[in-house]
């Protein structure tokens, strides 16, 4: 699944002066993958006789990629970080 990033704003509707505006990033497609064992199958034909063969390998788990979030920008809004790395707040002028 491809990585995608969305930015959502709350509250919805027209924001009154002095209201806290919250910007939240959501990242999808960055779940990584669990380790897995796979079987590779093949065959060799020897003297017209097909001889199947298999091998087993183990693929290691892939951790989700590290994510960092840029402070959102917008004219008239000064966003600041919060305790949640993907959440930023600003006060509507």
């Amino acid at each position: 699944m491809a990585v995608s990033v969305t930015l959502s704003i709350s509250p919805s509707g027209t924001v009154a002066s002095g209201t806290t505006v919250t910007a939240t990033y959501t990242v999808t497609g960055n779940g990584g993958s669990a380790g897995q064992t796979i079987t590779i199958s093949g065959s060799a034909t020897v003297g017209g006789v097909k001889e199947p063969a298999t091998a087993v390998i183990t693929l290691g788990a892939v951790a989700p990629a590290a994510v960092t979030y840029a402070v959102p920008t917008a004219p008239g809004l000064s966003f600041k970080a919060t305790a949640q790395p993907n959440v930023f707040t600003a006060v509507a002028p």
Partner: protein
Amino acid sequence: MTTITVSGSATVGGTAYPATAQVSLQAASSAQCLFGIWDDGSAWPSTSYAGVQKFSAAPVKSATQYLAWLGPFPAAFNTLCAAAGSTMYLNLEPWNTWGGGASPTIPDIAAGKYDSYLTTIGQAIKAGGVTVNVTWAHEMNGTWYPWGIESVTPAQWIAGWQHVYTTIKAAAGSLASMVWCPNNNDVGPVTPYWPGQAYVDLAAFDGYLNTTNASQTFASFVEPTVAEIRKLTSGPVWNAETGVQGTNREARLTQFAQDMKSGGIAGFTWFNEGDYLLDTSETAALCAAVNAWNAG
């Protein structure tokens, strides 16, 4: 109304992914007054909204609660505010005025001695499910509080503020909006107490017309504070606690509200107690002034 685009990006495994969203903001010329009330009827144990309700002829957006140190979070009042469409403005005061324990020192707060209490406050804010505006050790450039200029240096105050900011917001998430609030700078400059924009969600000040002298106006007495704050931040500036001295003051408070709007102030909280307690006619005049503000 102005619709603006918020732009950002997340970097995943070294690859940047841009993202945008739109937000609609009220146009500055039609911005509604962040109108708040402190009424003595709201005092702890704060289970009544009746004092604030006296001003219901105008849309009240904020209701103040003063909370002494180690006092319980006023959850009931917070719920009342949410039901009424206002936001609680929680004024945390680092002193013991209710017998709940010894008064803290600012350095002890900065050092983390009271983190469990601050975390409890933040958790209660989060549990309430609505935004709470919070200030701490306000009017620190004055002389009348134990956290004022006679006892606490600006550096000590800033260290305390930054720690309180970080600790409460860690527990409250996006629901705690920290309001930096010095006193009007006639008592002393506010700049030494600026903790940096990263530690301020809303800049405010407490600015009264505290004499009956008619020559004391927004321009002469309050605007210099606003000008000083505007050198520190480009964000909204709120008069978080105000009043006008005198009697039969309908005209004076109306003018004051008009001047605050013209001066670009985000709004004001009326301190409805003592010398600033309004009678029925004055209450009506204040509400009319707020409604005129909101009409654009």
